[in-house]
């Protein structure tokens, strides 16, 4: 892989900054998302809340459904493959998906290995719960990192934990002397060159977005203020009472995340947000964020 390919991959993520990427399951939903101002859509068969409810094995979506969504919108279309399932990723690349999400929302296909993402021309986004996990994914070729907040819960608590963890760990790295970085890389289990780069720059070498549990404009604002550059909303839109209004409001919140008066206006009379789940209601073995490493 050349740097030139990598900058083209991260380049698209740069264009998505300050925006909202929405999960959609039908062309109609994709159209609502685009009309509301989404910068991209994630095409999948079931939104995370329903995957959680239905159980069974969750796989990459039917190409026909993806193609219909591609035909409907002009914004980038992303799609998910299972962790480690490089054949699903190859199919998504053949479909000319704009970004592939190697996602914990689907049932993992490989418990030891993630996809070697450098082999693809299509850029990948991967989830991370901490800095070491983020750097391992970037080492494998991910061009975009997102938090791994517990999907389908409408509960922001895990995304907050991941974002704060990543930010704190980056700040800690930047206080280390050069002769301490190899030990840090060993303890973290992350590639040395990326550890050294973060220690020097104080930030991830790729854009840093947030996903998992975002259900209101205030949630979007919270994650942006904590350092997220763009927001993924999964179940939060199409499980809310008034999807169109909620979609539009979260788009505005991603722009005016630091203006509370504006957020008060945006949040006014939106109807019910998705019901949501407390983390205590989820069995430990059902936690999607623990999939992958």
């Amino acid at each position, binding site marked *: 892989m050349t740097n030139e390919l990598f900058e083209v991959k991260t*380049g698209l993520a740069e*264009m998505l900054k300050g*925006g909202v990427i929405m999960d959609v399951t039908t062309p109609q939903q994709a159209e609502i998302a685009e009309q509301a101002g989404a910068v991209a859509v994630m095409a999948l068969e079931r939104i995370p809340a329903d995957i959680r409810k239905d159980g069974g094995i969750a796989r990459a979506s039917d190409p026909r459904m993806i193609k219909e969504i591609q035909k409907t919108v002009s*914004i980038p279309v992303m799609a998910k493959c299972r962790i480690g399932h490089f054949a699903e990723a190859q199919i998504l690349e053949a479909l000319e998906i704009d970004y592939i999400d190697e996602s914990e929302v689907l049932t993992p296909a490989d418990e030891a290995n993630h996809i070697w993402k450098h082999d693809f021309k299509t850029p990948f986004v991967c989830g991370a719960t901490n800095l070491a996990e983020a750097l391992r994914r970037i080492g494998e070729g991910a061009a975009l990192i997102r938090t791994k907040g517990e999907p389908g819960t409408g509960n922001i608590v895990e995304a907050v934990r991941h974002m704060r963890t990543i930010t704190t760990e980056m700040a800690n790295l930047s206080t280390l002397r050069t002769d301490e970085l190899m030990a840090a890389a060993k303890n973290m289990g992350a590639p040395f060159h990326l550890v050294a780069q973060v220690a020097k720059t104080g930030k991830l070498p790729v854009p840093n977005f947030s996903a998992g549990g975002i259900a209101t404009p205030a949630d979007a604002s919270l994650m942006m203020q904590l350092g997220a550059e763009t927001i993924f909303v999964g179940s939060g839109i199409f499980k809310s009472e008034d999807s169109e209004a909620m979609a539009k409001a979260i*788009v505005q919140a991603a722009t005016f995340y630091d203006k509370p008066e504006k957020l008060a206006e945006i949040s006014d009379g939106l109807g019910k947000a998705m019901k949501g789940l407390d983390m205590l209601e989820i069995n430990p073995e059902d936690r999607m964020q623990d999939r992958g490493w």
Partner: protein
Amino acid sequence: MTVRPEYDELTIGVVALQGSFAKHAFAMGKLGIKSRAVREPGDLKLIDALILPGGESTTMTLLLEEEGLWEPMNEVLETMPVFGTCAGAILLGQQVDDERVRCFNKIDYKAERNAYGRQIESFSTSLVIPSIIDHDFHAIFIRAPKFREIKPSVMSLAVFGADPVLMRQDNVLVASFHPELTEDSGIHKYFVDEIVLNSR
């Protein structure tokens, strides 16, 4: 790179609703020039020139209209120098092949969105821009547009294949690629030195 004393007096506005606005502000900072995020109509009164960044033109249209920025911006752009990259270049044209995008009609061409194809067709390349930069410019094209029906009033400054990719019409500068994504601030410097300062 020389910092000109005139730079101290300048504030370049960057439309900061969505997209690569932070990268444009960074490029200006490298030249020693102040920038200001433009998110509300009042911000337009505090700037000498405007940058419309890359991003999604459908999202930007919506936010510009929603925030009451579209009309006041259209008005100041009658005279104010402006630099648009990718989605910004689409918005500055006369028309685009997507009814959800509203154009400012400040440069005489029609835009075709994603004309090279989806992300898998995005690429980077070296451009020769003889009138502006004495070295090859490393240009990154992301789901880039192409421009049709370009009128003689538009000056082409660089081409890729047969397509003009950097163009100027009076106070309007546009690129279908992303100079904000590379370390080289040469095109930003050209905008400030030849367009912004010359228009004062």
